[in-house]
């Protein structure tokens, strides 16, 4: 506690540090909200300038951008079906249907509160966690366990947003198939590239998400207008009530645990955290069919989990020197610009830096709550913009976002193809959420499966010696069997 107070005093007693804190907070929220131009873009732009800051201010700036950036993308995901970043995609699964139902204020309010709550819990856990936890995580969870975790998550993905279980599975399998485009993650074998060099890097998930969500939605609304069935979403500023939150307490706590856990594993992070948080909400729900159609628990689970991953991701970086994702890898660059290496020695040699960063992340999450509350009162009014102005703006934003991520025109083409495919698939009862789940989990799953097989010397029975992995595999298999049984035995109940 003394260290935390000292870190807080250091942070707020220096006007430069305060300016950097506020700048990082606003910058992260804005860049996080614009699709394609993520917090990573902002971090890459700022990286060379951190050499002119103190090491403490440089690392603090990046950690604040991280917290704010993960939250920022939730707003556009909920209001316009445009996730600012992949970790906000599950938020759109239920957030956007809530907007269509006239519950935008409730969805954005829940996202604000849960992002702040998940992030704050993570910051507190981060402060109390030691290198022991980080060491345990990397010892207990190798690629076999991470693959098992992905399989466990995929097992429930078929239940999200499709008309039937079978269409749900086909959606997920289609996503898994798209994830195999490009170089295979082990041998570097070229797959499904059709001699187009850009496809060697695979189909990037941001243009795909923008296409499946934003573009397909615009086409659907255009069709409704043409048929005369279009109704503008009602604007509501109702926040979720305390009773509603209390009802979701288990989902929130579960997502904090999932998010923290995914964040602490190098290479996993907020994206998998959000999807796993969402999937577990579906798995443990009595009525799975309500997900994907505007269920508050979906928004709560996803946003709590992705923000809970932020503080956790700092633990392996600071305690062990292991960056878990792109932003934390850039933080290594900030350390190195100041002749430092993250790792155990930082705790010994630069204790004040660590505690300034910890307190900055804690207060950044509190600020997200207050700024987010103000934001909710204002941004929801964007829904009052008439469709004939809003639709071109959404398409333009999505196009810029798809291009900005790598500066490749092929990504714009991919986005529009995904948009048209999404429109047709949604009309036929397939789930774009399932496809996106397949793409995201497929990329992580394929790589960890290949690594797992190499580590287990291509003998799946070796899983018997890895109890955590085995339990997750069995849990996933049981879910699949149960869902199939339910679909065959009670076909009406399994149908949405």
């Amino acid at each position, binding site marked *: 506690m003394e260290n935390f107070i000292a870190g807080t005093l250091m942070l707020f007693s220096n006007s430069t540090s305060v300016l950097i804190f506020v700048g990082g907070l606003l910058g992260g929220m804005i860049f996080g909200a614009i699709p394609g131009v993520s917090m*990573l873009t902002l*971090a*890459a732009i700022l*990286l*060379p300038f951190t050499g002119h800051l103190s090491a403490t201010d440089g690392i603090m700036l990046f950690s604040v951008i991280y917290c704010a950036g993960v939250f920022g993308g939730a707003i556009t995901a909920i209001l316009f079906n445009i996730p600012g970043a992949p970790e906000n995609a599950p938020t759109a699964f239920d957030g956007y249907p809530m907007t269509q139902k006239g519950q935008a204020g409730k969805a954005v309010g829940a996202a604000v509160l849960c992002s702040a709550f998940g992030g704050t819990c993570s910051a507190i856990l981060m402060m109390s966690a030691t290198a022991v936890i980080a*060491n345990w*995580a*990397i*010892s*207990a*969870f*190798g*690629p076999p366990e991470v693959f098992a975790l992905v399989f466990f998550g995929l097992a429930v993905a078929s239940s999200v947003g499709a008309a039937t279980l079978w269409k749900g599975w086909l959606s997920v399998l289609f996503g898994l198939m798209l994830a195999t485009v*490009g*170089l295979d*993650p*082990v*041998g*570097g*074998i070229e797959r499904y590239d059709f001699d187009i*060099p*850009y496809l*060697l*890097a*695979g189909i990037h998930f941001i243009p795909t998400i923008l296409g499946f969500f934003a573009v397909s939605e615009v086409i659907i609304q255009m069709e409704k207008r043409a048929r005369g069935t279009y109704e503008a979403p009602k604007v509501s500023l109702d926040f979720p009530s305390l009773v509603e939150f209390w009802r979701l307490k288990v989902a929130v706590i579960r997502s904090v645990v999932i998010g923290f856990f995914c964040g602490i594993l*190098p*290479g996993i992070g907020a994206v998998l955290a959000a999807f796993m948080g969402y999937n577990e909400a579906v798995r443990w729900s009595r009525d799975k069919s309500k997900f994907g159609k505007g269920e508050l628990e979906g928004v709560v689970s996803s946003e709590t989990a992705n923000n809970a991953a932020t503080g956790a991701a700092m633990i*392996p970086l600071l305690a*062990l*020197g*292991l*960056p*878990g*994702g*792109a932003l*934390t*890898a*850039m933080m*290594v*660059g900030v350390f*190195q610009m100041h*002749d430092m*290496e*993250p*790792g*155990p*020695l930082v705790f010994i040699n630069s204790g004040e830096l660590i505690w300034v960063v910890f307190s900055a992340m804690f207060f950044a999450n509190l600020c997200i709550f207050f700024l987010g509350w103000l934001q909710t009162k204002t941004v929801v009014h964007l829904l009052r913009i008439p469709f004939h102005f809003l639709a071109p703006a959404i398409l333009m934003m999505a196009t810029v976002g798809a291009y900005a991520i*790598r*500066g*490749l025109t092929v990504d714009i083409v991919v986005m529009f193809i995904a948009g048209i495919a999404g429109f047709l698939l949604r009309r036929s009862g397939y789930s774009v959420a399932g496809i996106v789940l397949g793409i995201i989990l497929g990329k992580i799953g394929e*790589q960890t499966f*290949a*690594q797992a097989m*190499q*580590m287990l*010397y291509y003998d799946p029975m070796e899983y018997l010696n890895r109890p955590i992995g085995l339990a997750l595999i069995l849990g996933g298999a049981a879910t699949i069997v149960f869902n199939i049984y339910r679909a065959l035995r009670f076909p009406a109940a399994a149908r949405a």
Partner: protein
Amino acid sequence: MVVYKRIWAGAIGAALALGVSLPAAGASLPDMMEKPNGFPERPLTAIIPYGPGGGSGQFGRALAEAVTRITDVPINMEYKPGGSGSVGMTAYMATPADGYTVLEHIDDASSAHALDPSKPNPASDLIPLVTAQITFSQIYIRSDETRFTDWKSFVAYAKSRDGKTSIANVSKAGSMERMNLKFVTDHEKIKLQQISFDKGGPRYAALKGGQVDALFEQPGDVRGFLDSGDFKPILTFLNERPAAFADVPSLKDIGLNINPLMRFRGYYVHKSTPPERVKWLQWAFQKAFHEPGYQAFNKKKFMDLIDSFRDTKGSQMLINDTIGIYRKVYKEVGLTQ
């Protein structure tokens, strides 16, 4: 094996020997050079075919900043990762050859061309402006490892495990990492299970967390773990022991008489760029290598242990020799006809 020895000892040996004489040439570059017809009159763009946080991203930025410090010309970084550098290379080939866009790339471009001649040859389809990082690889184990403590005991352990000894690696087919390891495992008659990790963080976590037995990496990338005492090297992929790793056996010490494949990074420009612009860019990027800030960066990355500088001619020799070696080796191992 005899074939490897003959090829490598001749070709890379010549390239490394050439490099010894080149730093002086780089250091003797004029302090300033007049801009040819005002070029560049706007910021340059550097395409980096990897992410901003990795070794290439850090190198690309450090050298570009040094160029800016000596010329006052800003350089915008564009990261185009994916496909082991092929996406960035393809994107670069589509840019105008006006000298305003430069490309950072690593030895992967050379091995990609050796594997598939339709891919650009960095020595002849592009003009190398400078090679500013050349480094060697090592095998690391955890410092608190008890099953083996040095290369000899590691080999004995691997033999006793009959192929069930694992090493974290990048491990793409035909990669520098995989080829180097192949020569050592063939020589020692051991089998290592290579686990492929494309990102540094999870790769280092695998060794630190005990998921794998060893790690193949370059020393600059794991400096933090070496300084903290978490990892220790047990074999250096060089023929002589560098001073900083004087107690670690080299290839020669284990009786392997080859010159290993090196990791190298540099900057390139289009072949058809106007010659006077190429000349200015060569001066700027080669001069930047000697800039104190860049030298400090290279030192931190252990890039001062062997000569890391090649000018255009030296880079072309290094690349051509490397391509020649990869071609022979790929044929030997059946990756190409």
